[in-house]
C-alpha cells in the first residue's frame, strides 16, 4: 500500500455547458507512507447543472472528502476540480474562500448555525461577510418557502432541529449559489423533519434549477435525487439514474458485504462493479442491475 493504483480508467470527457462541477482524476491521501489513508482514488465525475445528485456509500468511503475537495474546503493530492470553468486546485486560500462565499452553499449534518446570532442574521451571514446588503425580497421568499418566517428573530437554541436545518438551507441559498453541497443534511433529524427537508430540496431543484449535491446514508433520501453515486474505498462503484429506495439499499448492502470480506482477507479492495467514467449530461449506466 505504498501508492495509489495507476489510473486505469480513461480520462473524463470534455466539460460541457451543462456541467456545474467536475472532478478529474482526483486523488486525496491523508498522511504519507505506511500510515497513508487513500480517501479518494482517481475519482472522475461530472455533476450536471440543475440536477439533484446523491452520494452514498459506507462510512469512511470518501463521500465527505469528495464534497470537501469539490467545494474548495480541502486541497487535492493530485488531479483537478473544474468549477464554473476554473480549475480551483490552482486557487489560493483567499480565492477559495471568496468562491465559497459567493458561489457555494453548504448544508451540514449538525446545522452549524452560529449560536450568537438570530436566524435572520445567520441566513444573511455570507452577505454580511461580503459586506453586501441582503435582498429582502429573496430573504422573505426563502423564509416563506421554508416556513420559518415567524422564526427569524429567534436564536438557534430556540429552534427545533428541523427548523435549524431550514435556516441553514436558507443560508445556503441566500447568495444564489452555483452549487449547494449538503453533507447528510437529515442525519440529525427525525423522520418527519427529514422528509420535509428532502422535499424542500427536491422542490428547490424542480422550481429553481438549483444544482444540489447531497451525501446521505439513507437509501430513502437518495431516492429523492435525480442520480445517485455509490462510493466504496475512495472509488465510485455505481452510478444510478433515477434511484429508488430499494435499488439503493441493495447496492449499499452489496458494498457492506464486499467490504467485510475484504477486511477479512486484508487485501486491497476491488470494486464489485467497475466504476465508469461519467460524462455529462447523460451519465453512462454501467450497473448490470439497471432497472
Amino acid at each position, binding site marked *: 500500500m505504498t501508492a495509489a493504483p495507476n489510473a486505469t480508467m480513461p480520462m473524463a470527457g470534455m466539460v460541457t455547458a451543462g456541467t456545474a462541477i467536475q472532478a478529474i482524476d482526483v486523488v486525496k491521501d491523508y498522511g504519507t507512507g505506511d500510515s497513508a489513508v487513500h480517501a479518494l482514488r482517481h475519482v472522475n465525475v461530472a455533476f450536471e447543472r440543475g440536477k439533484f445528485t446523491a452520494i452514498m456509500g459506507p462510512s469512511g468511503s470518501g463521500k465527505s472528502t469528495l464534497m470537501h475537495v469539490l467545494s474548495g474546503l480541502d486541497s487535492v493530492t493530485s488531479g483537478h476540480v473544474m468549477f464554473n470553468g476554473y480549475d480551483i486546485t490552482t486557487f489560493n486560500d483567499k480565492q477559495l474562500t*471568496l468562491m465559497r462565499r*459567493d458561489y457555494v452553499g453548504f448544508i451540514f449534518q449538525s446545522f452549524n448555525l452560529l449560536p450568537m446570532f438570530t436566524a435572520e442574521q445567520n441566513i444573511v451571514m455570507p452577505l454580511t*461577510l461580503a459586506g453586501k446588503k441582503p435582498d429582502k425580497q429573496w430573504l422573505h421568499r426563502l423564509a416563506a418557502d421554508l416556513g420559518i418566517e415567524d422564526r427569524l428573530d429567534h436564536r438557534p437554541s430556540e429552534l427545533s432541529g428541523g427548523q435549524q436545518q431550514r435556516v441553514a438551507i436558507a443560508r445556503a441559498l441566500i447568495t444564489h449559489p452555483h452549487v449547494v453541497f449538503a453533507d*447528510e443534511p437529515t442525519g440529525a433529524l427525525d423522520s418527519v423533519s427529514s422528509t420535509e427537508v428532502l422535499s424542500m430540496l427536491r422542490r428547490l431543484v424542480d422550481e429553481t434549477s438549483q444544482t444540489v449535491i447531497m451525501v446521505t446514508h439513507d437509501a430513502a433520501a437518495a431516492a429523492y435525487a435525480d442520480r445517485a453515486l455509490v462510493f466504496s474505498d475512495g472509488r465510485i462503484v455505481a452510478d444510478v439514474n433515477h434511484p429508488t429506495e430499494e435499488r439503493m439499499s441493495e447496492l449499499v448492502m452489496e458494498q457492506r458485504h464486499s467490504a467485510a470480506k475484504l477486511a477479512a482477507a486484508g487485501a486491497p479492495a476491488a470494486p464489485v462493479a467497475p466504476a465508469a467514467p461519467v460524462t455529462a449530461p447523460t451519465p453512462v449506466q454501467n450497473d448490470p442491475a439497471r432497472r
Partner: protein
Amino acid sequence: MKRSRRTLIPAGIAIAIASLFISATLLLGNVLDSQAVKNFTSQYGNAEYSAKLDNDSASYTSDSPTLATTGFAKIPSVDGVSDVRYSTVESLSISAGSSTSSTNQYAMGIELSTKAGIMPIDLTDGSWPSKAGETALDSDLAQKLGVSIGDTVTFTTDYTGDDATLTPITAHVTGLTDDPHELYSLSGGSVTLTSDDMVELARQNLRLESSSASDIAKFTHDDMNADTVYFSLDQGLSDSQKNTVIDQIRSQVKDAKVMSRADDANEYMRSLNGGGVNPVTAVILVFAVLAMFVAALVIANTFRVLVTQRRRTLALLRTIGASKGQVHRSVLAEGVVLGLEYSIAGTALAYIIVAILSAAKVQGIELIPSVASILVPIVFATVITVLASSGAAQLATSVTPMEALRPIDATEKAGIKAARAVFSVLFLGIGLVLCFRAMSMAANMSTDSQNYAVPLFIAVPACILVFIGLIMSTQAWVPWLLSGLGHLVSLTGASGIIAAANIRKNPRRIAATSGALLIGITLVATVATGASCAMAAVNHELDSHYSVDASIDGATIGSDTIDRVKATDGITDAMSIGSYSVAMSSQGTAPDLSDVNSTPAQTSMYVIPDSAIGTVVADTFGTHHLEDGVVYVPSQLHADAPNTTPNLANGDKLSMVVTPSKDDMNTLVCGPYDGIDTSQTPQTTVTLTVQTGTFAIGDDTHSLAISEGTARSLGIDPGRHDIWLKVDKNADTSKLIDDLGKMATDLNATNLSGSFIYRKMFDMVIDIAMKVMLALLSVAVIIALVGVANTLSLSVIERQRESATLRAIGMTSGQLRASLAWESVLISLGAGLAGLVAGGFFGWVGAVTLLTGATVPFAPNWPVYIGIVLLSLVAALLASVLPARRATKVPPVTALADAD
C-alpha cells in the same frame, strides 16, 4: 502528574509575574529613596552625619559663633570620627597667568575635609590639595582661567576697591573637580583649599576690616565661622558604638543639632509637606501595598480561570474514590511547591531586570538589594498561591462529583450569585464612604498634627475595598459597558459584528478577563493620577518656598538691560524690581535703630507690580493684585525665626524703618551692628496693615512685599536694582548658570541667587519616580497581555466549530484574524476605560490623604491616560496574534468533520 504540572504553567507565570512585580516595586522604591536622600542632601558628599547650628537660637546674638564656641572644632578629635568637613566658605577673586595678562574670576573657596573623603564635589582628575599652597579647581573655572593641573593660580578674598594691602596667596593646581549638584556654580565655581589657606583668606578679611595686627596673628582655624559640619565615622562600627560616638559629639557641641543624613533628608522632605508624612516614604509604602494587592489579584484570578480545567480532574479523582481531605492535601502541597518555585524565579527576574537597567546606566536606577525585596515577594506570593489553589479545590469539592463534571457556567448557584451581589455592593458602599471620610479628614487636618498618617491608612484599605467590590461585580457592569462599545464596533463590518456577538455570548469569561486587565490599568492610572495630583500640590509648595526662579541683585540697569536679559537662552521672562531694606522689631513696634539691644530683624521688602505676579514671581500671594497700604508677610516668618521677628496675623499693624536699597550693599545695610551711620541714609518709619501669604523670595523666607502704590506713599524711591527672572524648566542648568554669572558681572551685580537649582533636584526625583512608574506600567501591560491572550486562546479552542463554519461559508482568514483582534480590543478598551475612571479616583484619594493639610487639586494626567489607552490597544492587538494564528491554522474541514 507531569500533565497536571503542565496545566499549572499559566498559574506559575502569574505567580512569577506577581512576585516580580512586588520585588521590582520594592527595589525601585529603594532607588527612589536613595535618590531622594542623595539629591536633598548633596552637601553631605559621602558623609553620614552632620551637626548644624540651630539657626534661630544662635543668630543675631552678640558674636557670630565660631568653631570654638560651637564646639565644632572638637569633633575631629572625638574617638570614632573619621573624616570631617566644615561648611566654611570664602568668596575669593582668583587669577592665573602673568600680572599683565591675567584673567580674573570670582569663585568660592571651600574647605577640604580632614581626610579628603567626604567632599560634595567629585575629583575628576589629579589629586586633592594636601597642604597650604595647593588647590583643586572646578574644571569649568579652570577652563575659564586657562589653567590645568600643575599650573599656578593666585587669589585674594573678594573685596571691592583697590586696596593694595592684600598679598595674594599663590597655589599649585593639584586637581580638577566637578560639581554635579551645582552647589557652587552660581558663586563662580569651587576652589578647594586646605584649612590653612582658608584661615589665610579669613585673615585677609580681618585686614580689610582694619583689625589690629595682633588680632590677626591670634586668628586660627578655631575662630572661623561654619554653620554646619559634616562627618563620617570609622568603618566597621556597630550601631551601638555609632550611637556612643554621636552621643559624645552631642555633648561637645552647643546650639547645634546632630543628625544622620537620612534623618536630615527625611526632615527636609517632611518640611516640604508642611511637616506631614515624608511624601517619598509614603509613596513607596503605598506602592508596596498596591503591588502586593495586585499580585494577590493576579494569582487569584489565574486560579479562577484554571478552576474550570482543574475541576474536572479533581472531580474525576473524587469519582474514583479520593476523599475530600486527600484532594485538599494534594492541592495544598502542589500550591506550596508551585508558589515557592515560581516566586523565587520571579524575584530573581526582578533583580536581573533592575541589574540590567542599572548596568545600562538608565539614569538614576541602581540595584540596591534589601531583605524585604527578596522575602516579601516570595512569602507573600506563596501564601496567596496556597490560598487561591485551596479555594479552587474548595470549589471543586463543594459539589458532588457529577455536578463538578458539568461545565462551570451551568453550576453557579443562585445563592453564590446573590451573595456576590450583596457583598460587592457592601464593599463599594463602605469603601466609598471611608474614602470620602479620609479625604475630608485630611483636608481639615492641621499640618503639624501627629496623626498625619491616619487618613492615608484609612484611604488605602478603603480604595482596596472599593476595588474588590468593582472586581466582584464585573459580571454586572462589564457586559453592559462592552455591549455599548460592541454596537460601535459592529458598524465597522463583518469582523466587528462577529466580535461584538462573541463578546455578548460569553459575559462571564469576558468579565473575568476584564477583571485581570482592570487590575493592571487601574494600578497605572492610580499611580499616574496620584503622582500628578501630588506633583501639583508639591509644585504649589515649591512655589511658596522658591517664589522667584532667579534674581540678579544690586545691578546697574540700563534702558535695554531687561530686553538683553530676556533674550538669553533659558530665560523666559525678566523684570526689574525695586526693593527696600527694612528693620522691624520683634515687638511689632517701630524699631529704635540707635538702641543696640532692640534686635530689629533686617530684611528686604520688595515692590512687586501686579504684572510680576504669575510671571517672574510665583502666584502664591493668594491674589493677583497687591493692595495699597498693606505689607505682605510670609506666613513662615515667625515660625522660622521666633526670637527676632514679630508674630503677625492678618490685619495686624506692622511698624518698620524703611531704607531704599541700592547697589552698594555696604551703605545699604541699616543696622546698628556694623556701626554704620544711619543718619546719612534716607529712611522713613511706616506702619502698614499685615496680610500673610505663602511666598519666599530669594534664599530667605523673611522678605516682605508691597505694592507699587504703597512704595510711592513711602516717599523714598528705592530705584530698581534687582532683576527677577523666570527660567525655562528644561533649560541646560550649567549653561544657564554660566550665562547668569557673566550677566551678573556685566551688570556689576552684588548678588546672584537661583532657587531654580533646588527645583532641579525635585525634577530629578520626580523624574525617577516617573521611571519607576514606567517600569510598573510595562509589568502591568505584560499582565494584561497574558490575560487577554489566555482568554482568547480558550475561546478560540471552544469556537473551533463556529470558526470553521464561518470559514466554510466565506469568512477569509484575514476577517477571522480581524474579528479576534476586535474582540481583544473591545475587552481591553472596556477594561481600560473602567480602569482609568477607578484609578483616577483612587489616585486622587491617595494624593489628598497623603498630603494632609495641603489643598490637593484633582490633576488629571492626560498624557498617561492617553498612553494607557494606546498601550492597551497595542497590547490587545498583540494578545490576539497567537490565538488568531491558532484559529486560522485549523483547516475548516477538520473542524466540520461530523462524527459519522
